[in-house]
């Protein structure tokens, strides 16, 4: 793309206004914005039906990584893999109504980041998070998970505080 219009803002900076190549490619839809959003939300709702399976697959990967970490707690690559999976769950679950699983994901990210090396106690904390994910999947705990979910959250928070 060409540099477009260039203004000399001052001796210290230049302002460049590149030609808007996307404006040329843009078209108006037959749908209004509200209609398009309704359609996109239907797409999300359809994916939400599949999300428990995706979460189950993430959970299996998480459990496999955890077993590896138990064998070699100092393995930074396995720790990074645990972080990646829990970070993905944190970023996806709430979008499909599994807010509690998203929170557990965020909590596990925090626990994995707070210490460089993993101790025996840290392994227990990670296992407690995997148990919480399992409960979310098996009991379809949506939103905050109701009474069970709130108890799980409180137990995890107390465990993290103690350790």
């Amino acid at each position, binding site marked *: 793309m060409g540099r477009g219009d260039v203004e000399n803002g001052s001796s210290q900076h230049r302002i460049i206004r590149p030609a808007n190549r996307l404006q040329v490619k843009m*078209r108006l*839809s037959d749908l209004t914005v509200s209609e*398009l959003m309704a359609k996109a939300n239907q797409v999300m709702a359809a994916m939400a039906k599949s999300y428990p399976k995706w979460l189950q697959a993430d959970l299996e990967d998480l459990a496999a990584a955890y077993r590896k970490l138990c064998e070699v707690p100092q393995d930074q690559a396995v720790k990074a893999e645990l972080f990646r999976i829990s970070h993905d769950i944190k970023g996806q679950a709430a979008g499909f109504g599994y807010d509690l699983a998203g929170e557990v994901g965020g909590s596990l990210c925090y626990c994995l980041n707070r210490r460089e090396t993993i101790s025996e106690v840290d392994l227990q904390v990670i296992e407690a998070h995997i148990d919480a994910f399992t409960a979310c999947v098996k009991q379809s705990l949506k939103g905050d998970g109701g009474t069970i979910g709130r108890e799980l959250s409180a137990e995890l928070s107390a465990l993290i505080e103690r350790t």
Partner: protein
Amino acid sequence: MEKNYAITFGGMSVLVVDDSRNMRRILTQLLRSFGFVDIRYAGDGQAALEELRIGGVDIAILDWHMKPMNGLDFIRQIRSEATSPDPFLPIIMLTGFSELARVKLARDCGVNEILTKPVSPEALYARLTSIVRQPRPYVETRSFFGPDRRRREAGKFQGPYRRRRDGSPSFAALEVNNGTR
């Protein structure tokens, strides 16, 4: 009342840069519902650079946490390297990191828009339309190249003490009064 028709993105190509299979699924479905047909994929920043060198990509939607090249390093390569395939590429960063410090860091690297996960159709559509309809100018200084980090025009201030470092005596007094010094 006049109807607010949506934009359709059928003529544009989008590159989704994310190492999560689920995230790629989600974005694919949403982008298709917005009319995108040409959707390409890369699993990290390095693969994205290679895809861009093939050409024809209009917009990139990018995760932060990827290996071996993460989202921030990708943006730095795009904005500042002499070998960049497209320094003006519109980039939307879609990330699970929502801390203010990280948002500022991404902005200072030259991202156009930031969107925190979980993604909603409304938020993604808003960022895409902002890039198409209200593209910000780019600013080049000795230490930065990227979209103007100011969202609003600050007005044409004519006085001599435009910045804090310009050292206005009255500004310094004001800071003392406010307890910021």
